[in-house]
């Protein structure tokens, strides 16, 4: 192992046997010896990477790309078919919380059981137990049996043990949503603290925000291979563009089919998102203009008003506006295009969706189109939140 590395993964391959009808009984083994049908599914192919001590690395990729398998291999729950993995120091994973908890035993007794499964000895647990109890905020209940706990309390206790075992390498599969928002904030802070303390962290997440917040480096896996590797901001830009393309191709088709079938009075067969250079894009950098072109078809000419609403992926409404509010008259006839230019978009990292709705002059809804335009925004700065607030400091 190279000096200064905490994890070294060398040319590992992993495949699972997927049985069509798995059986482990004597009858089947003897009678149908050769009838075990299975398919060999390759999850990882010749994967290599290394993680330095104290580094935080994020793994991203769509479902089934092999990121969780990689994490399982690192924890040594499963073993690779080929290649080797070396790790240095104690490995702890936040994959399983509350391993070995016994419902009839008290919180305190269960801390001992759970922590011992992480490989701590009695002395080490004794020295940490107060910290663990304090972190879990369960001081009052710690000597009650765990079966009397609410599920939130149970998870809080389990999480507190897992995060306080002082591992050298911490593996996390999706930062867990444990407890109320206060407790979550505390967990996020604890992660930062662990990172500053020089603990090596490998995290699998779908939340780019979490990875950008915590990680120094990000690895994008697809079909068991590394597609890109680098700073989270750089990798996320590539990833979002790729995912956006996959998504628009799919939803474009679905929408066309649906609308043709319905034979609507007003339809929008095509939506395009372009940057100022006229290039089609699905991801934009903060501050860029987003030019949206809507291709429409209408049965008879009409004066309408148009509404557009911007949502973030969690359905937080970011902006909403209607043309009639500005006394703008819109006449639509036959087939044509309309363009919406969002100037110098100040939204921060995230996935955004736009709904369009069309109303008659009297204000009756003609048709609405939900989420027909979707795009991602990224920023290569460290700003966080929903949108950029233009500000200035004076000292």
């Amino acid at each position, binding site marked *: 192992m190279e000096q200064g590395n905490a994890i070294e993964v060398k040319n590992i391959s992993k495949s*699972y*046997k997927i049985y069509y009808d798995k059986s*482990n*009984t*004597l009858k089947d*083994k003897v009678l149908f010896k050769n009838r075990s049908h299975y398919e060999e599914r390759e999850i990882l192919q010749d994967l290599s990477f290394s993680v330095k001590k104290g580094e935080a690395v994020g793994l991203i990729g769509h479902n089934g790309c092999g990121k969780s398998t990689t994490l*399982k291999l690192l*924890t*040594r*729950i*499963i*073993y690779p078919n080929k290649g080797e993995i070396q790790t240095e120091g104690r*490995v702890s*994973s936040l*994959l*399983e919380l509350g*391993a*070995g908890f*016994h419902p*009839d*035993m008290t919180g305190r007794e269960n801390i*001992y*059981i759970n922590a*011992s*499964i*992480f*490989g*701590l*000895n*009695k002395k080490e*647990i004794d020295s940490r137990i107060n910290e663990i109890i304090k972190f879990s905020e369960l001081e009052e209940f710690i000597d009650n049996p765990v079966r009397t706990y609410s599920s939130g309390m149970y998870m809080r206790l389990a999480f507190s043990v897992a995060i306080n075992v002082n591992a050298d390498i911490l593996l996390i599969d999706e930062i867990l949503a444990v407890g109320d928002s206060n407790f979550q904030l505390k967990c996020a802070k604890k992660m930062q603290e662990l990172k500053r303390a020089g603990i090596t962290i490998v995290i699998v997440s779908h939340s780019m925000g979490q990875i950008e917040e915590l990680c120094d480096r990000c690895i994008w896996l697809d079909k068991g291979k590394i597609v890109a590797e680098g700073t989270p901001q750089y990798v996320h830009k590539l990833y979002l563009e790729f995912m956006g393309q996959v998504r628009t191709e799919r939803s474009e088709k679905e929408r066309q089919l649906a609308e043709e079938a319905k034979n609507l009075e007003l339809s929008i067969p095509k939506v395009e998102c372009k940057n100022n250079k006229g290039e089609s894009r699905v991801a934009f950098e903060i501050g860029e203009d987003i030019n949206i072109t809507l291709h429409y078809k209408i049965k008879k000419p009409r004066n309408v008003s148009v509404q557009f609403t911007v949502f973030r992926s969690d359905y937080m409404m970011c902006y909403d506006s209607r043309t009639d509010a500005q006394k703008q008259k819109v006449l639509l006839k036959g087939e044509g295009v309309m363009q919406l230019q969002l100037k110098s978009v100040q939204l921060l990292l995230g996935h955004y969706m736009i709904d369009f709705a069309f109303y008659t002059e009297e204000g009756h809804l003609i048709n609405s189109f939900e989420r027909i335009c979707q795009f991602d925004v990224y920023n290569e700065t460290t700003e966080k939140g929903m949108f950029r607030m233009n500000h200035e400091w004076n000292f």
Partner: protein
Amino acid sequence: MKELYDYRTMIASLVKRDLIGRYKKSVLGFLWSFIDPLLQLLIYTFLFSVILKTDIPAFHICLFVTLVPWLLISSCLTGGCMSVIGQQEMLKKIYFPREILPISFVTAQFVNMVLSFVVVFVILAVSGYGFHLPALLTLPVIMIIEFILALGLTLLCSAVTVYFRDMQQILAALSLLLMYASPIVYTLDFVSENIRKFYMWNPITRILVAYRDILYYKKFPDAINIFWGIVESIIILIIGMLVFRKLSKNFAEEL
């Protein structure tokens, strides 16, 4: 091996969880550890001294000193084979040396047996049967040999059962067979000379004979018998460890 030592606290806490957790909500609690062997003793004594009218003197003592150690072996065969499968949730999610599961199972059962021996001693003392004190000092050695044998068997059975679930039923039947193939409800005198050559190669027999020598016949156990008992038990332990190590790599995928 070193790793197992690092995880000693885990073994200790699993044993504790097993022993305390098992009776946590039952009324009689820990007393069940004593009641269970006593009930079996009652049944067999009734069967053999009242109905079958055996002429073995002090039959209940003769039976009890082998029944208690036998119950350890039997629970390791029938229950120990599930010690890995039973913890599959833990096994699929977290790393620890897999050997810990069978080790802590056997240890918990062993502690249970040692506690049952308290009852054995009480009966020996109260009934006035008495002890041979110097021979009694060799008893811990026999117990350790039995622990080695039980551990070897449990490692072997628990690993194989993961891949081959029928093992559980097979072992239940095998355990019944072994009970009558070992000197528990009868003494060695009932076994004819020409069979005894094969009969003695059963390591369980060697161990039970040693228990009976010390507590029932009140004499030192046969050194040659103990020697072969140690050899056989260690061979079984080594086989168990090798098989377990080989099979444990794929536990998480098989379960």
